[in-house]
């Protein structure tokens, strides 16, 4: 397998696994874990096997052409940085999956959880491995989506739903900004592929759009990485199951923003704008996060704010713009993932074992779970930046960087102070976490007596803590090479010399570090006891980011409601009017700007018969419009007559295929409309019995008439102009020439439908299916207008008559009256089916085809419903329209996809002659199978609508219904 294929496979596997996991039984916890774990491990091994190439500075590309002309291809790109992040995603994923196996309760639908988690893993891999900006933005949004689903996993929980919604809105909105920024960036660089963008630093910096693009990209990154002022969603996302918090909200997804900043660091950084936009935000987030974390009473809340603070630290480092700071940022990203994920997992174990996450209620756990306590202590020490742990190393690099002068402004002077204070805060909350949870005696007995978790639940933490120690003690031997390849990839020839040693001698960073450690300890000794009484964090707690967010959302909803009230209507006539006016305006523009001229073709004269036909058709159409309001049945008949005139015109103009289809469509339309007539509200012959018609009504009707006349006239003018122009080389010639040569059929219309334009047809039958299902769903809950609920008069009279006679049962009159017609209609059923099949089979060469055949078939079924009545038909005939639709869609899609198997593009027709015994040579085209799909969809859709209408007649609506008990049901 080539590395290119491997790369594609590594991204695709989690999605395939996600799909598979979704189909596992609800209780299949272990199987789902195995599936997910296997995929993560395989992915990690795969990515690992590519390291030798990456370590030599190679960039692996896997390009699948999609729209090469727009520079949009499915590109995956593995370089030093993306290797590091992909490894992080996969290894963390594997550990979290193992942990989740023991964390998730047996009562939860665990396969669903793993399905979401795998899909998230896939999209996260997509973000880090994409070699194309647009593709990154796409996967970016997908991670937001699966983060939403995972936060809302316990959807019965209000806070989970709220947290999920908030996270989606914030990160989703950020994703849109990111997308816009990327589009601008691609425009500046002259292409969307990452290599193009990374190579055009000068073009980007000199572009006038650079500030805008930078702002948009930064908003995207800051929302995802929970930077101030967008940080508020992250604490609320803690309603998610703890494995999700460990994986998405500390180790990977929140690092996506950081990843983009690192990835684009070479082209975006290095300007004042970058420095002043990124560094202060990072610094503020660093400080605020640490400050708020001190006052948290919820274990996960503390870790969430600590995560925000550490993300701020990384962003600050990237903002500084110096190569060494970028190295520190990459290094700290990895370190933070290891210690923070293990802390989250420890918090999950504590929650699991004691039943609470409230720091005030916890205490003395050292006695019950010494191993977990030890692990948590090491991880917390890494978080605080204690020497010999990985957190210390990157924090040391950070402190060294803030001591440097970067801009010569006030920021340079403030940063060392700020960094030391934030570090002291980090020490303070780390100590508080450990001391309160494991050592102080609990104020009241714990909800549950805790004990050590199952050993395998602890295993992931052990591995991560071991990593903290190893990196902390032997940095150069463990993380060194991987960091080096990532740094070389990001910084290129700017890559600085840096040292990963534990001991750099007594220097200023060490002094700051020790000050922070001592300061944190002293602060805890002084104030630690009082922190338990804190309800909210002082100063920053007043910002109320959440309430602001809610207010903004509510205002948005209010504005939408206002707009809807202003411009929306539930009445059909105004909607139609607006639609027509817009169409008119759009069509009138070319008239106004380009003028109107008749073509050069001569006037051919009028064939009197044809003119007569159109006179009749036109009169029928006019009469239909005239009677539509007060005599609907007559209007319907007249519409049918107008349709017939159209149909004859097609025959006249040598288009038998169209004529056939038109005829069949006319029949079905008329019957379905007839069935619907009964449910329309009764007409009101005279609304203004005494007074004259109000002026505004006159004006409205006059306006509508004017719109209709202008639209019709416009169409006529356009048609006339087109038809008087000479026929030039059009695509029609291509079709006539190639229909048989390439499509294997002599019926050009059908060949166009199933071959040349088969993709359109696929889309059309999809629309048809959607429409049918929509109609069905709407009619299923249809409540007739109050005046048409009553049984029709004729039915009542007949039922009365039947009741009065002892030897008759209700319904006998109808049965008697329809006896002969019914018999004949039943006889016709097989004939019509045969006819439909005949149309289907000959469709490729003669008028017919799947669409016409499908309508013919549904006419057969329609006839049965009319002859026998709904109940009897459904007693005898098993029509499952949804299955027809489904099978039809599948047949069409699979036939189309079948072309791939033979190496042709989608929907290529295969054609040959088959020698069938007795019958002889028979043309056989794969298009017939496609047409069969069309046929099935048409039958299914038409019959589904028919059934929806037919079932109305056997429902017994209650005349006066009390107030609906469930208001929400009707909208649902």
């Amino acid at each position: 397998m080539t590395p290119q294929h491997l790369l594609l496979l590594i991204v695709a596997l989690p999605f395939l696994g996600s799909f598979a996991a979704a189909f596992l039984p609800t209780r299949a916890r272990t199987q789902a874990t195995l599936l997910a774990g296997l995929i993560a491990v395989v992915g990690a091994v795969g990515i690992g096997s590519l390291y030798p190439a990456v370590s030599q500075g190679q960039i692996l590309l896997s390009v699948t052409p999609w729209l090469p002309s727009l520079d949009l291809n499915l590109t995956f790109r593995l370089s030093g940085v993306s290797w590091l992040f992909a490894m992080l995603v996969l290894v963390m994923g594997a550990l979290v999956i193992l942990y989740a196996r023991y964390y998730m309760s047996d009562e939860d639908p665990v396969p669903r959880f793993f399905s979401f988690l795998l899909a998230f893993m896939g999209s996260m891999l997509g973000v880090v491995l994409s070699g194309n900006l647009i593709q990154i933005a796409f996967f970016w949004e997908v991670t937001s989506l699966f983060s939403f689903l995972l936060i809302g996993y316990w959807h019965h929980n209000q806070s989970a739903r709220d947290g999920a919604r908030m996270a989606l809105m914030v990160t989703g909105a950020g994703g849109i900004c990111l997308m816009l920024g990327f589009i601008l960036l691609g425009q500046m660089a002259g292409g969307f592929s990452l290599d193009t963008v990374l190579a055009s630093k000068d073009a980007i910096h000199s572009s006038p759009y650079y500030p805008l693009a930078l702002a948009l990209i930064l908003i995207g990154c800051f929302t995802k990485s929970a930077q101030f002022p967008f940080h508020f969603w992250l604490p609320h996302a803690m309603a998610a199951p703890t494995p999700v918090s460990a994986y998405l909200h500390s180790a990977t997804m929140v690092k996506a923003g950081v990843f983009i900043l690192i990835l684009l660091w070479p082209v975006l950084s290095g300007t004042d704008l970058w420095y002043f936009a990124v560094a202060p935000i990072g610094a503020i987030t660093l400080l605020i996060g640490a400050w708020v974390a001190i006052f948290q009473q919820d274990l996960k809340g503390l870790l969430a704010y600590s995560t925000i603070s550490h993300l701020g630290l990384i962003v600050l480092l990237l903002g500084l713009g110096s190569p060494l700071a970028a190295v520190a940022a990459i290094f700290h990203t990895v370190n933070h993932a290891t210690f923070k994920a293990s802390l989250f997992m420890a918090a999950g174990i504590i929650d699991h074992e004691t039943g609470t996450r409230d720091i005030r209620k916890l205490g003395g756990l050292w006695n019950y779970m010494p191993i977990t306590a030890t692990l948590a202590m090491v991880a917390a020490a890494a978080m605080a930046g204690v020497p010999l742990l990985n957190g210390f190393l990157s924090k040391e690099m950070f402190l060294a960087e803030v001591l440097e002068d970067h801009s010569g402004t006030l920021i340079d002077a403030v940063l060392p102070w700020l960094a030391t204070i934030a570090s002291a805060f980090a020490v303070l909350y780390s100590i508080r976490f450990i001391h309160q949870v494991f050592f102080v005696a609990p104020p009241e007995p714990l909800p549950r007596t805790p004990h050590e978790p199952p050993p395998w639940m602890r295993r992931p933490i052990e591995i991560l803590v071991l990593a903290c120690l190893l990196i902390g003690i032997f940095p150069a031997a463990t993380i060194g090479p991987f960091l080096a390849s990532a740094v070389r990839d990001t910084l290129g020839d700017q890559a600085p010399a840096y040292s990963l040693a534990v001991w750099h001698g007594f220097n200023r960073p060490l002094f700051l570090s020790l000050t922070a450690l001592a300061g944190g300890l002293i602060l805890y000794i002084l104030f630690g006891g009082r922190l338990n009484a804190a309800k909210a964090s002082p100063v920053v707690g007043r910002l109320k980011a959440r309430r602001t967010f809610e207010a903004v959302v509510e205002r948005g909803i209010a504005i939408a409601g206002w707009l809807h009230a202003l411009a929306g209507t539930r009445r059909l006539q105004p909607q139609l009017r607006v639609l027509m006016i817009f169409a008119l305006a759009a069509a009138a523009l070319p008239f106004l700007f380009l003028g109107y001229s008749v073509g050069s073709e001569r006037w051919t004269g009028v064939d009197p018969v044809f003119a007569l036909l159109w006179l009749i058709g036109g009169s029928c159409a006019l009469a239909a419009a005239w009677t539509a309001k007060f005599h609907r049945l007559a209007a319907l008949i007249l519409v049918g007559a107008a349709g017939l005139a159209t149909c004859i015109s097609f025959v006249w103009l040598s288009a038998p295929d169209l004529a056939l289809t038109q005829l069949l469509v006319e029949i079905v339309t008329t019957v379905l409309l007839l069935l619907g007539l009964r449910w329309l509200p009764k007409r009101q012959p005279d609304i203004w019995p005494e007074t004259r018609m109000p002026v505004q009504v006159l004006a409205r009707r006059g306006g509508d008439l004017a719109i209709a006349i202008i639209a019709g006239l416009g169409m006529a003018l356009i048609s006339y102009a087109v038809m008087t122009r000479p026929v030039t080389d059009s695509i029609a010639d291509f079709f006539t020439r190639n229909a048989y040569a390439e499509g294997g059929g002599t019926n050009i219309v059908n060949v166009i439908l199933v071959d040349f334009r088969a993709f359109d047809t696929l889309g059309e039958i999809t629309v048809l299916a959607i429409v049918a299902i929509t109609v069905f769903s709407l009619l299923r809950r249809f409540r007739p207008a109050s005046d048409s609920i009553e049984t029709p008069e004729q039915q009542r009279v007949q039922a009365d008559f039947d009741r009065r006679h002892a030897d008759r049962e209700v319904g006998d009159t109808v049965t008697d009256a329809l006896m002969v017609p019914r018999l004949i209609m039943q006889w016709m059923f097989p004939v019509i089916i045969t006819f439909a099949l005949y149309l289907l089979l000959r469709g490729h060469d003669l008028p017919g085809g799947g669409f016409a055949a499908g309508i013919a078939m549904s006419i057969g079924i329609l006839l049965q419903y009319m002859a026998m009545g709904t109940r009897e038909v459904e007693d005898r005939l098993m029509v499952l329209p949804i299955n027809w639709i489904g099978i039809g869609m599948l047949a069409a899609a699979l036939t189309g996809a079948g072309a791939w198997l033979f190496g042709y593009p989608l929907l290529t027709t295969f054609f040959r002659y088959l020698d069938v015994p007795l019958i002889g040579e028979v043309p056989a085209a794969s298009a017939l199978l496609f047409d069969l799909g069309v046929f099935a969809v048409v039958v299914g859709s038409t019959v589904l609508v028919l059934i929806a209408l037919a079932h109305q007649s056997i429902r017994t609506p209650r005349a006066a219904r009390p107030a609906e008990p469930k208001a929400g049901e009707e909208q649902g």
Partner: protein
Amino acid sequence: MTQAPDLPLWAAILTAFFLLAGSLITAIGSFGLVRLKNFYERVHAPTLGTTLGAGGVLIASMICFSVLKGRPVVHEVLIALFLTITTPVTLMLLGRAALYRDRTEQQPDIPRDFD
């Protein structure tokens, strides 16, 4: 393939005769629909078209295409068959509906009830 203008004279005459006869009969039926007075009379007139009229046109079609293609073309028989079977259903349904309505509304001059 031979086209309609290439028909031999005898065939052309025959075809034209049947075609014209069929059309004329249909036209008479339509005329009757307009002229006759009440529903029960009118409902009979168009049946001229679906029986004799259609028959004439179908025979013309059979002659014309049999001669043109040089082999018997008789699938028009099927059309005649289905027309014959299905037209009465329309008549029956229309007649019953009208009768029913008139009886319910107790109109005068309706066909007698045979019960």
